[in-house]
């Protein structure tokens, strides 16, 4: 039954009806952009290239990721979605052979600058991983981890931040009586929402999500999509997903990558209903990939 429930949630948030394309039973909202206002750019990529050793993973990516919107990366496995995402908070630094050229700016700040402090960058750009990775600590300590790193806070301030973050990730009601319990006792979906709460407790500007729902059941997936919908007003969210339906439901903008090339990038509604590129159309209708 969880599948229908997730669709109910999706339908509930739909404000105006559209004719859905036959391959995807999803209806689209009218976005602000339809009214002609382009949102400001948060992340700007120009001629962005990435290598792992001699393997050329991303070729000449040009893309403006808008502020306070949900942008989804879709594409078949190995197309470079995660690589692109992981450059935004420089997690690729952990891979010795990874390097990048071109331009990657966050609000005008050059993220590829060797002298730029990645620790500060990662405070500004939060990340949620594919597999939920709560720390082997209490629920409270998990959420308080980021704030404790960056700020000197009083006990009550910290309590407030923890509560607010857990409320925002809609986990508060489920865990408020057992904040001191181990986070490892939570279910998979709860753990992932805890990881989101942990990421937003550090008050980032950008939230990166690397296939956040791939290890979750449909019910938890719905909860996380709902959560993204709530967070979209405050955070620039970039999400990598293999789930076409999820990209269509949850994102405002959508980028289709294929073999390291950016094939198409635009308004999600346009990409899904009226793709400009034939490859995109083939992919989203399930003819390959």
């Amino acid at each position, binding site marked *: 039954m969880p599948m229908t429930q997730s669709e109910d949630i999706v339908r509930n948030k739909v404000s105006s009806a559209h004719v859905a394309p036959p391959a995807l039973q999803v209806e689209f909202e009218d976005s602000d952009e339809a009214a002609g206002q382009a949102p400001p750019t948060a992340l700007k990529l120009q001629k962005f290239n990435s290598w792992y050793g001699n393997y050329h993973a991303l070729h000449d990516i040009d893309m403006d990721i808008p502020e306070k919107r949900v942008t989804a990366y879709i594409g078949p496995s190995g197309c470079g979605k995660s690589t692109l995402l992981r450059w935004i908070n420089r*997690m690729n630094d952990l891979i*010795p052979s990874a390097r990048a050229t071109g331009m990657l700016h966050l609000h005008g700040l050059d993220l590829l600058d060797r002298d730029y402090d990645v620790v500060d960058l990662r405070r500004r750009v939060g990340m949620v991983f594919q597999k939920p*990775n709560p720390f*082997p600590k209490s629920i409270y300590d998990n959420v308080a981890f980021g704030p404790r790193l960056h700020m000197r806070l009083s006990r009550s301030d910290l309590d407030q931040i923890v509560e607010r973050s857990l409320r925002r990730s809609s986990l508060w009601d489920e865990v408020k009586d057992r904040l001191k319990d181990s986070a490892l006792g939570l279910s998979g979906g709860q753990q992932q929402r805890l990881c989101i709460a*942990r990421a937003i407790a550090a008050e980032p500007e950008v939230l990166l999500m690397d296939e956040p729902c791939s290890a979750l059941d449909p019910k938890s997936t719905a909860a996380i999509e709902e959560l993204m919908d709530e967070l979209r007003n405050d955070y620039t969210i970039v999400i990598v997903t293999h789930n076409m339906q999820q990209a269509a439901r949850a994102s405002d903008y959508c980028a289709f990558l294929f073999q390291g090339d950016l094939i198409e990038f635009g308004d999600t509604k346009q990409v899904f209903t009226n793709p400009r590129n034939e490859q995109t159309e083939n992919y989203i209708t399930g003819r390959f990939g």
Partner: protein
Amino acid sequence: MNQRPQAYSSRRKRRILDRSFVIVCVAAASMSIVALTVLIGAILYQGMGHLDWAFLTGSPSRSAEKAGMLPAMVGSIYACVICASVAIPLGIGTAILLEEYRPKNRWLAKAHQFIQLNITNLAGVPSVVYGILGLTAFVSFFGVSSSVNEPAWEFGVSHYDEFFDMTGDYVSVPLSKRSSPTVELREGLQGYWGPQREMVTLKPVEDPARWKQVKQQFDEAIAALTVQPDAPGYEQAHAAAARPFAGYVRASAQPIRTSEKAHWYVCIPFGRGVLAGGMTLMLVVLPIIIISSQESLRAVPNSLRHGTLALGCTRWQMVWKMTLPSAIPGIMTGSILAMSRAIGEAAPILIIAGIVYITFTPEHLMDDFTAMPLQIFDWAGRPQTAFHHVAASGIIVLLAVLLSFNALAVIIRQKTQKPLG
């Protein structure tokens, strides 16, 4: 027709082979169990008779009945504590460098691999070799001092030349060094010494008032000394020249060199003391601690590292707040097992300490010492059979200490083990 040749007989053969293999395994396992049981049984049979409180608190003796192993136990524990307090921080630090700070640069990475290779090799080096290394490095500091008994630098010690004065009391003259060639006192009237009968040098310019007082006492003392000891009035005169007073050294005075060491006495090089022994044991167990710590750190899932880094942790914060706390149960277990190896080592201690007949417990870091395995070795090597029973009792004590170490490791592992992400 399909042929299925000899299906049944082959199945029977297989079953027989299966059964007999189990029997072979059981036989192999029981061999070791029997050997262990016989060993423990024999040791208990031989040693229980001698094992009592007196044995645990006594010192080695020429007679087997009085022999005890307190100095060996204290020496072992002392050396082990030194070994642990040096080896565990060094080992964990090295493991953190090797596991958490892998360099990106190609040449640094090569150096990293080289260190790793060396540590793996060091774990297999026989402990006698470490004994020789410890002898060179810690006992004599590569020969910085000409003699092991004459350290190059010393702290927390005062050396004295001791004489008898006319009245038969000791007079101690402080020396700068144990081997100081000058004998400070000569026959005759010497001067002033203090209440503890030690030579005191006073400079008249610095404290005229005090000097005046000393002079007066000096004169009184001379007056007293001019009265011969067997003459009447000597006692009164002597008492009048109350201490501190000046004295007279006999013509036959030969100094006795003595030294007074504080409990924190330190000398460089270390000499054949507990510190050198503990440091040598540290060399033996360091590779073991490094390797076991590395394994515990490697067992911490990478998702936790990435999670902390993605929140804006520095590498140090990641190690201190996440990796190390997650790995500490494994590190503790490995370290305790390494310590039980250290407490059982005889060869390096034999090379460092050399002597086995020590009847006192070490009082400072440089003091001579002996260890339990060494003491057992000594007893077992004696011709009298009575001492063989003493050796068996020593083995029981050593085994008890080792088993309690291992039990502690198991308890720590079970108490602190928690599932990781």
